[in-house]
């Protein structure tokens, strides 16, 4: 009796461990294979590059949000900051006639500033970033609407299209920017003192403070990173469509959170890796693309994304309970 118990137990445990580690990747492969079979034109080089392009702004924002989530906070303002940044860079280029690099740098600084606003209040007073960024979301969207008067901004200089439409070989420039963002955030998380502190604060803020971690700085920096990424996504987006509108990308927040959660970062903080978010982003992008190819309307895609988030969270929580 004891013997069979001994033999069975390790095998079960191994399966769970494998699933906990590679579950997301396996799920991604399954989705990928299914889409390749059911949707014509899914598995072509041009479509895959297209997915990469479509994934880029979600991916850039998800990279920033991952850092925030690991620090046990959340940034609900990313989609609106993205729109405001798109409007900001477009208006700087068309109305103010600022040179392209200057316009981009100013816009990225705006993103950092908005992040610093939430981050400093969160760090100083211990207000949850959840509520602060909800306010910033409204502030940013409102500012974008007022600045544009509700209309579209067009007429950006041709050279600006390189960021969002340009390609190096078959690879879209936006995809490369996204990959570099992922790499940069990965290096911050794994190779810097700040990265260790982000995990420490996310795991136990009070213990981290007593251990000498500057909790204020950690909160400030994570929100600034997220703000920066959202602004960068705004630049990429405005370049892709060569214009800006205050209400574009209103549903992007959903996709960004989905990418991070599917990627396995714990909303309770302290856990998460960039590679997970990369896969989470690909899952969302492939889903969107596949559903488009299959001719499923955008309204129903929302239902699909909602369902996927629930599923991912469920797998995460059930899996963790089992392993623990």
């Amino acid at each position, binding site marked *: 009796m004891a013997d069979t118990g001994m033999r069975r137990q390790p095998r079960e445990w191994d399966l769970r461990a494998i699933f906990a580690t590679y579950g997301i990747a396996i799920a991604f492969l399954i989705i990928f294979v299914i889409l390749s079979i059911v949707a014509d034109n899914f598995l072509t080089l041009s479509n895959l590059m297209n997915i990469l392009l479509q994934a880029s702004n979600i991916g850039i924002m998800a990279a920033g949000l991952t850092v925030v989530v690991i620090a046990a906070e959340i940034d609900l303002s990313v989609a609106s900051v993205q729109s405001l940044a798109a409007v900001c860079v477009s208006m700087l280029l068309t109305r103010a006639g600022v040179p392209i690099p200057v316009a981009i740098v100013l816009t990225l600084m705006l993103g950092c500033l908005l992040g610093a606003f939430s981050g400093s209040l969160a760090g100083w007073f211990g207000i949850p970033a959840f509520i602060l960024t909800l306010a910033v979301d409204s502030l940013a969207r409102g500012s974008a609407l007022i600045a544009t008067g509700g209309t579209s901004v067009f007429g950006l200089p041709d050279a600006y299209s390189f960021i969002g439409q340009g390609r190096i070989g078959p690879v879209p420039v936006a995809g490369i920017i996204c990959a570099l963002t992922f790499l940069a955030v990965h290096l911050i998380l794994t*190779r810097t*003192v700040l990265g260790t502190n982000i*995990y420490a604060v996310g795991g136990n803020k009070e*213990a981290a403070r007593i251990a*000498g*971690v500057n909790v204020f700085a950690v909160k400030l920096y994570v929100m600034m990173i997220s703000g920066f990424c959202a602004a960068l996504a705004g630049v990429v987006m405005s370049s892709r469509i060569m214009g800006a509108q205050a209400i574009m990308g209103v549903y992007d927040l959903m996709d960004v959170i989905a990418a991070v959660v599917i990627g396995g970062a714990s909303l309770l903080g302290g856990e998460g890796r960039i590679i997970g978010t990369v896969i989470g982003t690909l899952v969302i992008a492939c889903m969107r693309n596949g559903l488009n190819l299959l001719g499923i309307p955008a309204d129903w895609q929302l239902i699909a994304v909602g369902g996927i988030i629930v599923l991912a969270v469920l797998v995460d929580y059930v899996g963790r309970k089992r392993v623990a």
Partner: protein
Amino acid sequence: MTGTSHPLLQLKRVSKRYPGVLALQDVDFDLGVGELHVVVGENGAGKSTLIKSIAGATFPDQGEILFDGSPVQQLSVARRKALGIHVIYQELSLIPTMSVMQNIFLGNELTRGPGLGTQFRVRDIGGMRQFCLDLLKRLRIDIDPEKRVADLPVAQKQLIEIAKAVGFNARVIVMDEPTTSLGPKEKQRLFELIDELKGRGIGIIFISHIVEDCIALGDRITVLRDGRHVTTLDRGAAGAAKLVQLITGRPISERYPEIKSSPGKLLLEVRNLTSGKLFRDVSFDLHEGEIIGFAGLVGSGRTDLMRAIMGVDPYDSGSITIGGQPLRRYRPRAALQHNIAILTEDRKTQGVLPNLDVMTNIAATAMNLSGSAVGKRVTVGGQITRSGAIMAYAVERIAALNIKAHSPRQKIAHLSGGNQQKALLARALAAGARVLILDEPTKGIDAGAKLEIYDILADLVAKGLSVIVVSSETPEVQAICSRILVMNRGRIAAELKREDASVEKIVTYATQSLQ
């Protein structure tokens, strides 16, 4: 002694295997009506598994558990509770934001009239209040049932847990380390209550690390070691030394080694430190190579004082200087930069970084102090971490402090209490600590690991480090510290030299009412 036909609770040859460990092996145990049966053993001896098996939180692989003569080993926690088997765990299970009354009735609310299902019923608030008042009065517990649990000291929370069990007709109460965080007076109150419960025929299983308590209380004492039943002693059958030897399985000549202080230059000066009602007008000095102790009741302000010195909590007035330099308020980082480090009372919530591995935990403080020697070694300019260097440093320290971990990459949360404590000690030393504040350094740590920690402290003090020990284990403070400051209601009531101090004296100063 407690002569009934069959015992109230009986375990027969109970075994439980976890992957890789045999947590309990053929353990026999019984408890009579109105009896207090102590269970002792080191960490890993099987006490927790025994409790869980009795509670129904885990199911033994083999053996029988009889309650009142009938088998209960298949029943759930809730079913066993309904029969009268209650467990009060060390981490109390009260909900801090709710009142005493709400906690007592949690899950058992009295209701009135008809209702929908079990959830949508009208709570009988008047009835519950009356029941609560009666219950607390019966047990002579003087607590307002309307008070929020969060506002109560630990000792009172424990009394409420006991009241809760008694209120729901407990016949067996298991108390897991109930005295660890209590001062002498609170302990006395608990013991009185325990006597009362025994008088009512309730059987009590009492788990404790504190040998004196076990000997004072136990009608019988069962010793577990490595998952096996070593022996069961009748009252008075063994003294402290003998019991410790049975627990650890090896002779220990000294439980508390004397640590030699050789005070050098003045290092830390605390003057007239005051923080609201927590502590008032506290002044003391600490020299290099000195180990001093803070004794007193829980709630006498010892922990609050240490947290203020460390900059964890703010204070109102007074001054702290280290090496002649003033220390900024409310900045743990500032204290660390001045080479002061603390190991807090609550290792789990204020000590370890639970989601990180052992090596990162050890280096966590140093890497944030770019000026420190270890900080320079494990980072590039205080910004970029050098994982190879962190690993090498951790390996060194793990060996030096004999920290038992599978690998430096093991999550610290998976280590035992004693090894976590040693890792936190390593963290403080990595940060270049010259003053170590240790709040209940051996709380919840087994006898073997305790001795190791005393050895490490002796070594550090000999090297010129200064140590402040806060402890509720009076014999511990008395033995290892060269000076003992006794706190009483936020003030220093006495300062005793080791030669002049005795457990009785300390307890007297800690409990006497001032003017």
